[in-house]
């Protein structure tokens, strides 16, 4: 018996052992017409899915397809509207997260929800500490934690504060934590989004190992190659509907994508022949916090791609150009004239728009209505004297909602209730209503579904046709590679390579970004 199982067996109580009695291949969790409505919106239409004990069951779908809703229902975070859930053949409520955990249903989320200030060991045992005479056995817990980590081959120090680890390592800790609780049913929500290749490999190893011990795995991902590498079966969701479940051997990528989107994959990267005009923005030796000596030019009708790893200085450069960060050296030329951009207003007035990297932290006022978010940059235009024109306000917001097909019943709905793709459209709508000559899009398609991606790329072409220039920042190489007329590679805050459209191979660009 491994260390992991030994520790997990501390939890051999009645509720938990129920799940472990189900033989491999028999149904462990059955959803019968499970349904969730938020007011008028059907987030999950009646779904009937069976999960078999010991399988890796992938769930794929675009953003807003209902994947998160499904996880929240299974982990007891939200109550269902209708339908039945059978756990080991018995109907269960799953009314609270504690009930789900007590039955052995756990989830590892994309964003780690643990305490960064506590040690790895303390996090592993959080809420379940080893006590003697009412006092914590810190040394013993640390030793046990270390033996589990070593056993899993993670090579992580149990005594280090969790916050000192990378996001990927933290995710491994979260997974180990779930495994230590004698989990029977483990849900992974896009776990590899922030992981390096090596960390992903470690995670996959752990998933296979848990599967070997009889744990049922639900694996949610955008990445097709992972689904085909790991899963036994795959279920597809589209617009809140369960559109099918396939054995992995009897399907292929094309079929799954067709189920997911009803639209062909070639239509995604949309690039038009647009004549390139005069320079709009030129930076010469621009330096600031996080970037150094950056010289590049953006011309009308052109997409300039900035590629690099996270933290390579691309976003910092964008914030510097936009006046959010002070620039320490170098020059900026706008339409051939030297300018000083000291704050965001100056940048906006010149004609620069920035759709920032993080929608949640920089892009949106989440707990305010969609309409207010769209109008935020243009309120000074919607005012007649000191008082706002409410009809102009409504008209401007509704026009963007219509033009961008933001899926909402009303502009008064809070931005937080929108899916990732729709939130990105709100951010874009802000800047379309303001108007600009230079649009900076920082990771515009992270967490955005394929359909919305295609819409965003078509929008790029429209902006270019109207004579704008675009800076496209992305960590997803195919995106910048297929779209950018000129591709600049960043590493460690410096510009390390510049290529015309398709002039360098994927491998060369990647090698420059990593620095090998």
């Amino acid at each position, binding site marked *: 018996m491994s260390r992991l199982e030994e520790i997990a067996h501390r939890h051999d109580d009645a509720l938990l052992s129920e799940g472990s009695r189900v033989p491999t291949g028999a149904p462990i969790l059955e959803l019968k017409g499970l349904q969730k409505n938020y007011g008028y919106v059907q987030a999950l239409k009646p779904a009937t899915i069976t999960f078999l004990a010991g399988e890796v069951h992938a769930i794929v779908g675009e953003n807003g397809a209902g994947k998160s809703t499904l996880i929240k229902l299974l982990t007891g975070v939200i109550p269902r509207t209708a339908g039945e859930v059978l756990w080991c053949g018995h109907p269960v409520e799953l009314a609270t997260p504690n009930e789900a955990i007590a039955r052995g249903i756990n989830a590892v989320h994309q964003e780690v929800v643990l305490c960064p200030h506590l040690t790895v060991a303390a996090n592993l045992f959080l809420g379940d500490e080893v006590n003697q005479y009412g006092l914590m056995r810190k040394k013993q817990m640390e030793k046990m934690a270390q033996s589990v980590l070593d056993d899993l081959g993670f090579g992580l120090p149990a005594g280090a504060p969790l916050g000192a680890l990378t996001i990927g390592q933290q995710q491994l800790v979260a997974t180990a934590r779930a495994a230590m609780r004698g989990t029977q049913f483990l849900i992974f929500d896009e776990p590899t989004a922030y992981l390096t290749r090596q960390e992903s490999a470690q995670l996959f190893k752990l998933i296979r190992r848990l599967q070997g011990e009889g744990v049922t795995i639900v694996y949610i991902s955008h990445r097709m190659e992972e689904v085909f590498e790991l899963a036994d079966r795959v279920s597809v969701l589209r617009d809140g509907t369960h559109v099918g479940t396939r054995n992995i051997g009897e399907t292929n990528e094309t079929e799954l994508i067709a189920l997911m989107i009803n639209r062909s994959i070639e239509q995604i990267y949309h690039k038009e022949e647009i004549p390139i005009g005069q320079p709009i923005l030129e930076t010469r030796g621009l330096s600031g916090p996080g970037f150094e000596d950056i010289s590049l030019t953006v011309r009308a009708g052109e997409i300039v791609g900035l590629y690099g790893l996270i933290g390579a200085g691309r976003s910092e450069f964008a914030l510097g150009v936009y006046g959010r960060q002070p620039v320490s050296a170098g020059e900026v030329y706008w339409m051939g004239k030297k300018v000083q951009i000291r704050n965001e207003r100056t940048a906006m007035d010149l004609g620069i728009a920035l759709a920032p990297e993080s929608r949640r932290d920089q892009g*949106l006022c989440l707990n305010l209505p969609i309409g207010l978010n769209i109008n*935020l940059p243009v309120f000074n235009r919607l005012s007649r004297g*000191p008082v706002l024109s409410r009809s102009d306000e409504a008209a401007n917001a509704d026009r963007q909602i219509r033009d961008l097909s933001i899926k909402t019943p009303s502009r008064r709905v809070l931005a937080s209730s929108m899916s990732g793709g729709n939130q990105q459209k709100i951010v874009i709508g802000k800047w379309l209503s303001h108007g600009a000559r230079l649009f900076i899009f920082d990771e515009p398609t992270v967490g955005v579904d394929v359909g919305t991606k295609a819409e965003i790329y078509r929008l790029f072409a429209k902006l270019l046709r109207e004579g704008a220039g675009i800076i496209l920042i992305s960590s997803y190489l195919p995106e910048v590679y297929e779209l950018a007329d000129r591709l600049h590679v960043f590493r460690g805050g410096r510009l390390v390579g510049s290529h015309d459209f398709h002039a360098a191979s994927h491998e060369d660009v990647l090698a420059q970004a990593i620095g090998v």
Partner: protein
Amino acid sequence: MAITSTESAAVAPRRGMNVLFSLTLIGLLFALWIALGIGTASFWTPLNISNLLRQGAMTAILAVGQTFVIITAGIDLSVGAIVGFSTVVMAWLLQAGFPLWVAIVATLLVGVAIGAFHGFGIVRMGLPPFIITLATLTSLRGVGLLITNGSTISITNEAFTNFARADFLGIPSLFWMVILIAVPAYVFLHLSRWGRYLFAVGSNSEAARLSGVNVNRTIYMAYILSASCAAFVGILLASRIGIGNATQAEGWELQAIASSVIGGTSLFGAVGSVHGPLIGAFILATINNGANLLNVNSFWQRIITGLLIIVIVYFDQLRRRGSR
């Protein structure tokens, strides 16, 4: 992707909820009035009603100012101290022989200066609002006591002291002052872009900044408005009690915050209105007034206020959770 018919047919849930919440608050206020009218003989007398309106007026004005600050996800703990300090400034200037209008304008300017100092501490020095306003809370009381040497300054200007007792069209002049503040405050918060900016800064100041909102100026504005409202209340209080005394208005900042919160303002920012805190202030005033009439031990009033805050904010939480 077209919007389906079911979605476009859906009514906007948020506005409906807000109206519902306001109606519930007004309903609560009326229910209190009716209950007190039945329970006591003296509630519905002209004298008591004008008393009630006078009692509620000052908290109401403070609560409106406080709400601007809370919407930016800040807090202004200094308003009670500013009220006390303003009575001293007012009395001192009148004693020194300045004309009444000079004294009023100067006192209001003192409020503006204190608010600007709060803005400076938050924006330039990076202090949390709680800390900088807590610091002014204690030091302003000290400055006021230093000026008066611990005693009180009497105000002899009859015209000024009569004002708080006067009526206009049968309604106490102090209540007219609430209307004088509330109408422009409503226009400012709900109908002007500056109001929108307050909400945006309270929701996500970085997003507001990147959208071209001058975040620093917005924060200055909120604290200056709050402190100015407090200075204005100080002038009204000086008129009402006829003295300047730095220890007056003890704990009024908590009354103002309570009124604002009862009126639906979220301490996390970005949620609030002008009418909510006004109703909240008069609910609190009614409870105090009713407790007096019913001969309830005044200590109970504090306990009831506390319970009321818990109940109302809890119901508001339930409502928000339900609409999510």
